[in-house]
């Protein structure tokens, strides 16, 4: 019963929007629109679920005094502080302290993380683009052309001659490859959704053990 009811619910909720898409009757559409509204509410529950999961895993880490447990203390303290002032600030969380913490802690921390990436990406790209074989050489040349064709200093050096080649590389070979990836991922997602709706895929229900 604990598995059957969720499976029936999933089937009905999953099939209804497909049914509504093909039957544009007012009554059918109204119910579908209500489902969309419920979706906003249900999706919002993912947030507290994530918070509970994060807190539990970090508390366990602190209890066991695992390596780096002190960072978990910082994480939970930051989470509690931001949540406290966020809730104090009303619906959108604009308490002065909340805004101060965002501007002076969250913002610089995120900016630092992203800035550091530039160094790692440059180093990784340098190693990845070594001309070891034909494929790597093609990749290296394409990368140089695209980079020089898309930045102002590249325009200055080449007099804008690489820009059309760069644009062609992006709109033709790149777009074709991206399209393949997107279509492949979409087909995979669609088949997974069919499996979930039909009850073939049941891992989201858990192992069944308490």
């Amino acid at each position, binding site marked *: 019963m604990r598995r059957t009811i969720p499976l029936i619910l999933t089937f009905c909720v999953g099939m209804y929007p497909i049914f509504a898409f093909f039957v544009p009757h007012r009554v059918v559409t109204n119910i579908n629109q209500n489902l969309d509204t419920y*979706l906003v509410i249900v999706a919002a529950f993912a947030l507290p679920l994530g918070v509970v999961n994060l807190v539990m895993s970090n508390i366990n880490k602190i209890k066991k005094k695992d390596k780096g447990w002190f960072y978990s203390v910082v994480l939970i303290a930051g989470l509690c502080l931001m949540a406290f002032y966020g809730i104090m600030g009303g619906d959108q969380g604009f308490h002065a302290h909340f805004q101060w913490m965002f501007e002076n802690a969250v913002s610089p921390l995120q900016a630092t993380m992203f800035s550091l990436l530039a160094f790692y990406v440059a180093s990784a790209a*340098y190693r990845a683009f070594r001309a070891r074989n034909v494929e790597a050489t093609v990749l290296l040349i394409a990368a140089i052309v695209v980079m020089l064709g*898309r930045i102002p200093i590249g325009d200055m050096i080449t007099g804008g001659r690489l*820009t059309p080649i760069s644009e062609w590389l992006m709109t033709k070979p790149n777009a074709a490859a991206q399209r393949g990836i997107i279509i492949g991922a979409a087909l995979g997602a669609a088949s997974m959704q069919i499996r979930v709706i039909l009850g073939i895929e049941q891992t989201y229900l858990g192992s069944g053990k308490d």
Partner: protein
Amino acid sequence: MKIQKLLYIDRRIIYLLVAIGALIPIIRPIGLPVVPSAPVQGLFERVEELEPGDAVMLSFDYGPSSEPELNPMSAAIMRHLFMREVRVMVVAIFPLGGVQIAIREVARITSEFDLEYGVDYVNLGYKDGGQAPMKAMGVSIQDVFPADVETTPTEGMPIVEDVRNYGDIEVVITLATGIIGEWWANLVNAQFGVDVAVGCTAVSAPKYYAYLRSGQMIQRGLQ
């Protein structure tokens, strides 16, 4: 032998070169001209086609990590829209600071124009749930945002009363990091037929070319 040495150069030297490359333009701006690419020109022309009073939805879907790349885009787009006397509905779908950036940037740019809040523009704030509010706005924007960013009820605001759903919106422009730009194209353009434009970080640009080529997007970034 020399080439071999160059291939196995110490990563700290690469870091140093990147640091020098980043610092020089900060300390002494070079002032190189920026040439708009074809997709950027495409969005510019689409905005030029808008009539005064048309409505555009502008979504702040990025956090502080992408500010250096996306803030100039948001400023340029907002200035262009307000110069054309287009009404702007601001929303934020990205959870990690999108709404805070929206508040700051919208306040900064709107202060340059003579605009009336709730009539010429509105900041509806953040809504959790990603694709769920995007889809629900196809039916009613007011149902998704019963209050604006300052928790003022949106009921009675002329812009919200007038612009009920995507049917009343000419273009959705998202300044997006991660996958959110794709959601706008897959969901809002494909299902509701609204023009979607994405201003993205350079690292995300390649994937958007597929959408650009299929006509699902107007633009993918300012170079």
